[in-house]
């Protein structure tokens, strides 16, 4: 376990955490403001990646493709909201799970139908390719730094947006007590649509960002969806700050666990046992974290104010 490897993995964890935050931010808002379980949020992440690949195929320019894919994700999120989600806000959580599960099935398979089951990839643009030296003999790819930077920028922008604009104020008020906001004369349906579309765009943005470093394939959204749910439950539903901290925590713990758990276990266990248990324990670590957090603080680390 060398120090340089540790630093690299720390950065990787940070990068995963930033991506998780982008997905979880939309999810926690939709969840907090509308009390709506959107399992289809992971599919929107996947769709962002596919749209970016398709837009790159048309334009050949990475940045133009990102822009087009962003707009397309936003439009698609709005479309889903108008067609399906808005009819489910007042319903039971069970029906929301059922409907959004159906959307997952449709889109996962639809993507397979349109683009095939084989993984696609998006080339890294020339400007962001290459790597920078961190210390002796340790280089880190520029693109991953770009992801971290873009994610931090979006997080900061989101923070400003939520804390100091009128819509942000309404979103916070909605997360605390939606009927009251509605009673004060705010068109809460339009607010819901805006938040939902915006959340879809954030998830799509995360998908676009990872398209060059991961393979773009059907079902890529499922794993990140579950991680994002873990993040928002740990962070406290409806809280952006909680989502950010929990996302970084989960990203770092997951990545470090995957790379070092076996080595750490080898210190106390026989090598063969460590090799068996290590990976399992690493995959489980974030769920263990979540179980512990929920056992100690049943509403998450930073529950939105005014919520039970």
């Amino acid at each position, binding site marked *: 376990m060398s120090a340089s490897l540790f630093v690299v993995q720390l950065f990787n964890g940070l990068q995963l955490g930033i991506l998780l935050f982008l997905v979880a931010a939309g999810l926690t808002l939709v969840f907090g403001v509308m009390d709506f379980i959107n399992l289809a949020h992971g599919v929107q992440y996947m769709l962002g990646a596919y749209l970016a690949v398709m837009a790159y195929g048309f334009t050949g320019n990475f940045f133009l493709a990102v822009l087009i894919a962003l707009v397309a994700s936003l439009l698609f999120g709005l479309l889903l909201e108008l067609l399906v989600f808005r009819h489910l806000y007042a319903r039971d959580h069970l*029906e929301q799970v059922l409907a959004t599960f*159906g*959307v997952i099935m449709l889109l996962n398979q639809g993507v*397979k139908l349109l683009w095939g089951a084989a993984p696609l990839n998006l080339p890294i643009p020339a400007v962001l390719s290459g790597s920078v030296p961190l210390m002796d003999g340790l280089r880190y790819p520029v693109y991953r730094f770009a992801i971290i930077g873009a994610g931090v920028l979006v997080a900061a922008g989101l923070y400003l947006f939520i804390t100091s604009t009128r819509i942000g104020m309404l979103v916070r008020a909605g997360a605390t007590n939606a009927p009251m906001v509605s*009673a004060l004369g705010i068109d809460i349906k339009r607010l819901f649509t805006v938040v939902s579309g915006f959340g879809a765009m954030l998830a799509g943005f995360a998908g676009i960002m990872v398209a060059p470093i991961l393979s773009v394939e059907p079902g890529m959204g499922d794993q990140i969806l579950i991680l994002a749910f873990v993040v928002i439950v740990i962070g406290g539903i409806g809280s952006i700050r909680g989502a950010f901290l929990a996302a970084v925590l989960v990203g770092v713990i997951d990545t470090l666990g995957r790379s070092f758990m076996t080595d750490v276990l080898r210190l106390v266990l026989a090598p063969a046992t460590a090799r068996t248990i290590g990976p399992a324990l690493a995959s489980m670590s974030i769920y263990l974290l*979540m179980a512990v957090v929920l056992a100690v603080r049943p509403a998450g680390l930073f529950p939105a104010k005014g919520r039970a």
Partner: protein
Amino acid sequence: MRRAIRLIPDRVRDAARRPLSFDARMALAYFALIALLPLLAPSLGSGYLIVIGERAVIFAIAALSLELLIGAGGLVSFGHAAFLGVGAYAAGIAASHGLGTLSVALPAALAASAAFALATGAIAVRTHGVYFIMITLAFAQMAFFIATSLAPYGGDDGLSWPTRTTLFGRHVLKNETIFYYVSLALLIAAYVCLGRLMASRFGRVLRGLKDNETRMQALGFTPYPYRLSAYVIAGTLCGAAGFLLGNQAEFVSPAYMHWQRSGELIIMVLLGGTGTLYGPMFGALTFLLLEEVLSRLTEHWKVLLGPALVLLALFASGGIAGAVAAWRHEQGGLARMLRARSRFARRRLATGMVGPARGRWLGYPWLAHAAMPLRWVVGRARSRGQAAKGTLARLRRDLPALRQPELRNMLARWWRQ
């Protein structure tokens, strides 16, 4: 007077004389359908039908156990498939060590799933609503990852059983027909036990907790032990289903515990309709048949199933049982109206002012509604709190978003204060 020695106790005799409930009659129809399937299968030209029937029965057991949590307890578990896997793995591991006899494998499956349910339930049941959904999902994921790392037992690739479970050293369950009826017998036993459980004090408390926890606490019930017991019972029953599922395939893999499998179990329960016991059984059957038929139509059958689920959630959230109940209400209302003695009574029934069900569009018989004189309908609307409606209309004009019932309640509460 001489005391007669009774071979059959009074309670049992009375129970046998009582007419069966509608739920029980529907369940009986389901059991009859399943029991006759192997007799029909050869004439339809495929032993394949038996395999579908077996899977339908096994998933019916799993769906029934989930119904105990969702329908009675209001606990939406999104990790129920974990118990399928735990049961199947326990029996499979026992079998791979040469202990594949029924007296070891089945108790192992039940004990393992009960222990898993107790350990995870002790934490999960403390949480509510969305948090419960998420924490059950998290525990199922943990079980999934443990299974993938069980290198001595196949790891990712899964574990092939050396053989199906034996009974006194004989390969009785190898016979497909016997296995089929053994599964069916287990399903019937599960149905009867769950029916008794729901009707018992325990079941009533559980449903009471779902409807109004505060009130139940005020009555002196502590929610935690009831919910935890329900969770353990459901988990153990699902473990039994897992035991059967592993036997059926002679194989178990981590995919048994995948979160999408948990989602499918929820779909089965919702497709059948919660609140009844026959619903989930029909739901499991319908889901498997849909999967079968659609996958024959096209390789991309999920493109068809997905929108169907969305439509189901949007427009028919009661599932099969809900549709049947609505249809029965309609029939019942119509029959009662035709039987009603006076013109006055008929009119009251037709306008829905009294009768089997009011409020929903299916509440009163549509045929009667369509045929009845218009002034009855108008009269009914006029008689029903017109003043309140006028006030509401004025409020609605002033506050644009005043359309949700909870808001109306909120205003009413303020008014009273």
